[in-house]
């Protein structure tokens, strides 16, 4: 357990000391969503209607932006190779990194979402549903991202390839994420699907990513 805590703690510590990574993602998230009104026009009703989809796409792009650094630094300085012989299995190492990555990329987006709600003319209940959808859906986006990063870490230009690989996997998350926000009161189908997607992908991700890392190190 202390090994898992050490991995999460180290990634959080490194992110805060490297300076600005989390802040850059949040800025990207806000700016990606904020430019939409310029493209769509000043129709507040239309903006409010489209706002859940805009926020989801901005969140998705922000999570993609942070993917390359996930295993790359550990690969470059030899840490990844040494983690093969940690006291805990590589799968647990990956699980720790998934959690740290979610805390560093998705959580700041949730915290920044009220700002977007104001920019996109969302009312309080629409914003609350969007936050709930992001809370349930971003673990799946993170899990797919971690798998993509693990598959491509041994490739020199893998940073560009990972988003292309995981994009198709993320489409159901976007569909059910936006559907959850648009769903009428009392309807729980989208919520259940989104939760199931996150649960299954997070459970599956450490095994798939660890396998990819093992194959990549050969």
């Amino acid at each position: 357990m202390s090994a898992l805590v050490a991995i999460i703690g180290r990634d959080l510590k490194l992110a805060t000391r490297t300076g600005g990574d989390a802040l850059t993602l949040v800025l990207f998230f806000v700016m990606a969503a904020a430019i939409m009104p310029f493209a769509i026009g000043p129709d507040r009703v239309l903006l409010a209607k489209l706002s859940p989809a805009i926020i989801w796409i901005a969140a998705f792009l922000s999570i993609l932006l942070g993917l390359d650094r996930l295993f790359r630094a550990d690969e470059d300085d030899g840490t990844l190779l040494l983690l093969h012989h940690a006291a805990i299995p590589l799968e647990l190492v990956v699980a720790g990194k998934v959690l740290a990555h979610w805390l560093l990329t998705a959580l700041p987006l949730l915290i920044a979402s009220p700002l977007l709600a104001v920019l996109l003319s969302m009312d309080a209940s629409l914003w609350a549903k969007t936050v709930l959808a992001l809370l349930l859906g971003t673990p799946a986006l993170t899990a797919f991202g971690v798998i993509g990063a693990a598959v491509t870490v041994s490739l020199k230009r893998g940073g560009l390839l990972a988003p292309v690989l995981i994009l198709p996997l993320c489409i159901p998350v976007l569909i059910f994420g936006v559907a959850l926000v648009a769903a009428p009161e009392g309807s729980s189908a989208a919520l259940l699907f989104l939760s199931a997607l996150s649960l299954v992908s997070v459970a599956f991700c450490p095994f798939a990513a660890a396998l990819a890392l093992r194959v990549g190190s050969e």
Partner: protein
Amino acid sequence: MNGPKPLLTVENLALSRGGRRLFEAIEFGLAPGQLLLLRGPNGAGKSSLLLALAGILRPDSGTIDWYAIEPPKLHLIGHQPGVKARLTLTENLAFWRAVNGPDGASPEAALEAVGLGGLGGLDSGYLSAGQTKRLALARLLVTDRKIWLLDEPAASLDAEGDALVANLIAGRLSTGGAVIAATHDNIAGATQTLLLGPTP
């Protein structure tokens, strides 16, 4: 014949990388207290053999038998130090101690042992190449593991550092461990030498 029980037996090992056969028909055994030196020119496969022994590379054929330590929990010192520049020396060692197991020396004692005492609070990015190597070697001490696989352990080190490596290895051997080192240098106490060369 009643020798010490072997820790490792390698039989008929062959390994290729990038379609090129690095070595074949490699055979050796390793018992507690033994130091095996891997020698040979650049590209002969010394580092690859260490990675195969560590279970990271899959050999083409042959067997690697780690008696009673499967999966082998061992220390590997490779070309890259596994050091985070943004963490202090103590934080780097504390991380590896937590991840590998806290049954060795404290980070402070390990730093003292490798000649980096008093620098524990410094960011590792400020270390020289030789000091970074010493920090990587300190990782050997914070978790107690019987087997050490060392790839060029004295690279970047000064004469005092060479002696440090010899002392660390001697200490490991004297407590029943075993060491395999790929090196171009001589290390005192070697019980076996395996010469790798280009396969025709």
